[in-house]
């Protein structure tokens, strides 16, 4: 296979280009003949023989180049054979059609027109079949039908959805999607670049021209990993220039599969040793945690995001009209940061009514800033139903008391609370803080809470800043 001279392979690569010439010429001949049946266009049939001759000649050239290309060994034999023989056959029929048209093959006069049309129709059919086989070779056999509107989707390949990342089968759920996304277009059964196919477990095990592609337990020695880790400028870098390279996360998954899963096709994430970072990547690939919007890009944020339904635009408009600013914190997550700028409240304004409006989107809010706005205990009661809050900034609202703080003890996603300058707060609020398990940081400078109170509370994972 490898002793084919480079020059032959070089010429072979012109096959996909040249192959369009006979298609054009022959179909054009068909069109001429059809149109020529009309009296008005009678004369144009004079060009048919020329079109057929050019079609035949270019078909022969395309066949030869095609044969040269096939010598590269990058293609599956069976599919190749079909394409090859149909190509040859089409060329032969084109020759016959030409001979008929210049009357070297004589047919009874009155059948001539019919004969021409039928041979040409046959040619068009053959061209279509040949072309189809050819396209299957380059694009894969499901290329044409993949988006076929009425067909049943092939569900046999569809994966069972997993609920927990631990249940995911490493190969099926994590590795295969990467290969299909980035590699399979060149490494499949029908198109084996470098003699390598990633279509199924057997072919992966078989490897490519240079032998094994995957060495179980030795990712860095495996051709698959070596190639994707090369400098992108390097000639052997995979995927080749112009294709989207693997992300770091994707490489981490492949490496993990070879090293920890020993490149088998059945182990689940739970059954092998799985490092923390791979767990993160895997869950975001599977869309199991918030922040999965980036797909394979994955999010390194370890904060779990709640699911929220889309807020009604007119509701948002209303809330904005009340002076709140709303910003989506992760694109398309429907999770918001809401800020009421300091001193927004004008005399006569009813903060209660504002918050009432705001509570229409309470599940969408994860960061809430209401600083220096005369917020009081009653308002906090309303806010205590904003159960997805992760950050609450209510500093410099001097009216808030320990009782108000006590009402937010059920905010069990809260991890940062800012009560700076709320001078009525005392150590009683520390109890509330310590009841909120998720709470990590409290900013309580300028309150009645003292360093001593904090020492007495002695809660290690709760950081209270004075």
């Amino acid at each position, binding site marked *: 296979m490898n002793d084919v001279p480079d020059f032959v392979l070089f010429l072979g690569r012109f096959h996909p280009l040249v192959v369009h010439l006979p298609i054009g010429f022959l179909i054009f001949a068909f069109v001429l003949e059809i149109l020529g049946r009309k009296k008005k266009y009678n004369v144009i049939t004079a060009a048919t023989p020329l079109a057929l001759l050019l079609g035949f000649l270019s078909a022969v050239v395309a066949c030869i180049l095609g044969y040269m290309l096939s010598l590269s060994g990058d293609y599956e034999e069976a599919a190749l054979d079909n394409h090859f023989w149909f190509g040859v056959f089409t060329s032969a029929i084109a020759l016959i059609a030409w001979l008929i048209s210049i009357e070297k093959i004589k047919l009874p006069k009155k059948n001539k027109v019919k004969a021409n049309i039928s041979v040409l129709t046959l040619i068009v059919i053959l061209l279509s079949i040949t072309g189809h086989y050819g396209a299957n070779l380059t694009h894969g056999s499901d290329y044409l039908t993949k988006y076929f509107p009425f067909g049943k989707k092939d569900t046999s390949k569809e994966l069972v959805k997993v609920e927990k990342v631990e249940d995911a089968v490493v190969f099926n759920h994590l590795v295969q999607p990467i290969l299909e996304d980035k590699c399979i277009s060149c490494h499949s059964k029908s198109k084996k670049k470098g003699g390598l196919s990633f279509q199924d477990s057997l072919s992966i095990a078989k490897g490519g021209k240079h032998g094994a592609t995957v060495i179980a337990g030795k990712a860095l020695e495996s051709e698959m990993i070596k190639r994707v880790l090369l400098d992108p400028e390097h000639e052997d870098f995979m995927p080749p220039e112009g294709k989207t390279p693997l992300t*770091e996360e994707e490489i981490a998954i492949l490496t993990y599969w070879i090293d920890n899963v020993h490149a088998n096709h059945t182990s689940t994430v739970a059954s092998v040793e799985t490092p923390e970072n791979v767990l993160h990547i895997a869950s975001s690939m599977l869309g199991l945690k*918030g*922040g999965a*919007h*980036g797909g394979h*890009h994955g*999010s*390194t*944020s370890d*904060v779990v*995001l709640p699911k929220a339904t889309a807020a009604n635009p007119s509701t*948002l*408009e209303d809330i*904005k009209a009340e002076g709140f*600013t*709303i*910003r*989506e*914190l*992760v*694109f*398309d997550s429907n*999770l*918001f*940061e809401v*800020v009421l*700028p*300091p001193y927004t409240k004008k005399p006569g304004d009813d903060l209660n009514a504002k918050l009432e409006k705001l509570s229409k989107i309470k599940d969408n809010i994860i960061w809430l800033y209401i600083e220096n706005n005369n917020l009081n205990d009653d308002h906090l009661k309303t806010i205590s139903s904003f159960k997805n809050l992760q*950050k609450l*900034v209510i*500093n410099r609202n001097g009216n808030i008391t320990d009782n108000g703080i006590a009402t937010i003890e059920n905010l069990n996603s809260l991890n*940062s609370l*800012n009560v*700076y300058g709320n001078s009525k707060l005392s150590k009683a609020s520390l109890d509330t803080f310590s009841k909120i398990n998720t709470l990590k*940081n409290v*900013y309580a*400078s*300028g309150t009645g809470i003292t360093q001593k109170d904090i020492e007495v509370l002695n809660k290690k994972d709760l950081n209270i*800043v*004075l």
Partner: protein
Amino acid sequence: MCDHHDRLKSNNKDLQSVEKQLDRRHFLKKTSLGIGALALGSLLNTEKAWSSIGNSDNAAVNAFTRNKLGLPHHLPKAKRIIYLFQSGGPSQLDLFDYKPKLVDMYGKDLPKSIMKGQRLTGMSGSQSTLPVAPSIFNFKQYGESRAWVSELMPYTAEIVDDLCFMKGMQTDQINHTPAITFFQTGHQLPGRPSMGSWLSYGLGSDNENLPTFITLVSKNGKGQPLKASLWGNGFLPTEHQGVQFRSGKDPVLYLNNPDNYDGTDRKKMLEYLGDLNSIQHDAYGDPEIQARMSQYEMAFRMQTSIPEVTDTSDEPEHIFDLYGKDSRDPGTYAANCLMARKLLEKGVKFVQLYHQGWDQHIGCPNGVKFKAKQTDQATAALIKDLKQRGMLDDTLVIWGGEFGRTVYSQGQLTKTNYGRDHHPKAFTMWMAGAGVKPGFTYGETDDFSYNVTKDPVHVHDFHATLLHLFGIDHERLTFKHQGRRYRLTDVHGHVVKDLLT
């Protein structure tokens, strides 16, 4: 020809009759100029024109929850940022990167094995020897994190447990202008958008009465000049450029109305001006006109918003004491630190401070000492102040220069004096606040603080990490210009995950 001519007309009914008259008189002139302008416009500016068409209602969308660029990509940690740029290249050797072994090397030539054939600047490259100059300052470890800090930074020493030191910083540039430009824009040549512009473009504004990105240059810095391209918008729409405040009593000039003018009809005047501008915009479609309109409107709103933020009279005594006595003198580094905090409180996203003069080619000990004295207290005060207010939770603070300084002395070395040249291959910076590990030191240098031996952080990596903290995947915030997509990190950069909480 007539076609083009028609396109130059406005959509404003009132003006159309006037335009007809104009037509007859200036037909030739206008058409030729007009076509020229159109052609030129499309030659130079198509990207901009197109992109701005895409973004024309960006502000509205931003203000209204859904970001047109698909940002943020993930949950941000940081909401705002103060970048304390120490311009000139502070000596890591005299401040943070403690190298006790150098004492034994005093005056010896810097080993070739360390230099690895590095090209030096023209300033020290021709020296016959490169004598090793150990720092004359004492270092001690501080805090629970046991971070090394020299005696020059006593206030910073108090806050080390809030800082995340990066001792293995690296840049590609050895001279000031390209190095600063590289730090601020990701490229050594001027013309790319600055970090602040990228953030403004990507994330929009949090307070429409103030610019998103403000630059403050301290008046007591003095040194290598800075220029506006460092906070420029490059090819991004103009409204994203940084707005520089003057370093003095009046940070923005002409905010007050002139004598005998009560300002009542200014709004009306601006509305008319806006109408005229939009007629011009209809005719030429130049996005710069829109940018100008929004800048005028911003300026109008700043008449009331700026005096409010720049007024420090409501700050209590103890705050001035915290920032040091300079903080009462508007325009100094300390006063700017305080102003930066106030700006952030009002919803400004990016405040960029510059303090010049960290360029100690000669007289390094005295120079560094002086610069440290000007900045140390206020820097630490800013961190403490932000922390106390809970703002450090979502504010990122960055301290650092454009490169470091050499271990060898530029010029004569004596027991008490030495100079240090530029050194791009290893230097120290720190970050604090939103999403970065507090009390943490990342990266190590060799015994000469010359090469990074562990965990380098390149400028591109720094940028990638910074964007990451704002919820942005640095590979996916792009802008198409002159036929290709640009990023702050261009084709480089890795998020340094080890720095993140």
